[in-house]
């Protein structure tokens, strides 16, 4: 077959380009527009340059929520990834229990995010919730609307409950793709259980775990709904993560310029981290 070059083929990309323009580029550009102007009522705009960006980047409030965001993402990654791998390792490789385990694992992923927040809110209520009442009955003072530590504990626990399944399912898929011969060869080589994990299972799960970390990073970095429903960012600002802060600035205080600048910075950070992951993943492939 001979290849023919026909530049009219580019027209075939046009529908997708239009679609992307409408749902991504145009809204993004609107935000860029807000971020460089002072906005008043009656559609009065004054050009401000990079003032909002300077304000955001030097504000203590932004630094604090950024720190809380990284702390939260770090904690949940440190818990969810090892826990997910550990659960995947204990799941059966074959038999009727496989489907049971998979369905059980998938359940938390199917629940709408605001419902997850509401569920845990009720669960954690100190006077009637199972968790809240239980902890207090055990003599542990717990009140997530008053104590920052309790609020953090609840938010982290909720995220672990909601999202560890995703890591489990990905890790399990990775484990299932390992041919039986590897385990047989390991037996013949006299490998211990730890060696099998370290030299066979972990290297074979490498790819899916990278994806799991990437997904969990991005998702948790953008987390909004569940903490909004559960704690509303409190007590005080204790659980005010980046997106909660952003919404407060935009809709609570109507600081459109500040909020738009924050959005752009936030977007660039996510993009940067995704790019780092992408490079790491493709470099792994070359080796």
């Amino acid at each position: 077959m001979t290849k023919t070059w026909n530049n009219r083929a580019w027209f075939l990309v046009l529908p997708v380009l239009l679609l992307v323009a409408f749902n991504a580029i145009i809204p993004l550009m609107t935000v860029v527009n807000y971020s460089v102007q002072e906005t008043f009522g009656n559609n009065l705009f004054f050009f401000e340059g990079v003032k909002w960006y300077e304000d955001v980047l030097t504000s203590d409030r932004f630094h604090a929520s950024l720190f809380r965001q990284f702390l939260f993402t770090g904690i949940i990654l440190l818990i969810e990834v090892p826990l997910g791998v550990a659960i995947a390792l204990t799941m059966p490789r074959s038999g009727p229990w496989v489907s049971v385990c998979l369905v059980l694992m998938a359940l938390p992923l199917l629940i709408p995010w605001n419902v997850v927040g509401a569920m845990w809110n009720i669960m954690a209520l100190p006077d009637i919730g199972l968790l809240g009442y239980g902890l207090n009955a055990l003599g542990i003072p717990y009140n997530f609307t008053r104590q920052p530590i309790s609020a953090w504990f609840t938010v982290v626990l909720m995220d672990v409950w909601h999202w560890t399944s995703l890591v489990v399912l990905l890790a399990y898929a990775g484990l299932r793709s390992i041919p039986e011969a590897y385990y047989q060869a390991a037996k013949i080589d006299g490998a211990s259980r730890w060696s099998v994990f370290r030299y066979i299972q972990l290297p074979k799960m490498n790819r899916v775990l990278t994806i799991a970390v990437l997904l969990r990073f991005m998702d948790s970095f953008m987390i909004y709904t569940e903490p909004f429903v559960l704690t509303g960012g409190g007590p005080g600002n204790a659980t005010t993560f980046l997106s909660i802060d952003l919404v407060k600035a935009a809709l609570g205080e109507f600081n459109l310029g500040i909020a738009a600048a924050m959005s752009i910075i936030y977007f660039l950070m996510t993009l940067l981290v995704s790019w780092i992951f992408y490079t790491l993943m493709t470099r792994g492939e070359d080796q």
Partner: protein
Amino acid sequence: MARIDLNNIRHAYMPNPVSDDDFALKRVHHTFDDGGAYALLGPSGCGKTTLLNIISGLLRPTEGDILFDGHKVTDLSTEDRNIAQVFQFPVVYDTMTVYQNLAFPLRNRGVASNEIERRVRETLEMIDLADRADQKAKGLTADDKQKIALGRGLVRSDVSAILFDEPLTVIDPHMKWVLRSQLKELHRRFAFTMVYVTHDQTEALTFADQVVVMNEGEIVQIGTPEELFERPNHTFVGYFIGSPGMNVLPVRIDGQGAHIGSHAISLAGPIAADRAARMELGVRPEYVRIGNKGIPAQIARVEDTGRRKIVHATIEGQPIAAIVAEDTAIPAEPHISFDPAGINIYANSWRVDPAAARQGGAA
């Protein structure tokens, strides 16, 4: 190295086997001698891998015992049996270097580090990977990976046996020859007991001193490549080994010899004619002659394979193949005859020995 005895091994993959058909392996009783090179040959699903996994301990047989040098190992785990096995698809530990891959089975067994160093270096020389010792195993080609898998077996100089489960399946054809001759060379130098599973007759015949031919969970014949070729014990062996396989023609046996239609073929000795048995004559295409004497034949087609010609013909309505030299002229009225040395007689698919039949008749 060890002698391996298989005492009446049977194996079924289902929990409560009743009839013979439930068994994947229907009674195998055989001894692999110390230092022998054996091939287990048979079509897919004949039970050869099952047998191999029973020897290595990855499977426990439903019935029967396995003995290494007279010691019962049936209930020992794979780790305790001290066996090496190379699988169909190369298994290497991706994150380790070539050197670390070979050292792995020794480290797991707590061998002293200077001893590991010595043996790994020695093995790397054997498998020709000494110059790539510090390379990561992940980036190597399939045949180098398979060499590493083999090396992990060879490095344990005290293994009872090395088992191969179709190890050359994923290797390029030209590399197959190289690896196979390296294996044979290693066997000659170090006299490991080797059992090699394959469905490729060339591989089996070139590798092994003794070929064990299996079909439907049974051993049909054990013999040297020559024996399998000259005196197939069962018509299956005749079909399966040789290309094209042995011609099997239904015959009538009487005191004078065998008869195909109205044509008599003289035999080396009288065969006891069992009226109930289905009698057949087997002759390999190499022993079929085309000339002016014998049974008239109709030529169907001639395949030219380069060095020789394969002639497909019919005699008395039966298809027959013959291998003739490249320069042989086929006469206008071709006749087919058989070299007496290549004739075997089968009763119900099993070979009948004329000499044995004569003794039986005298008794």
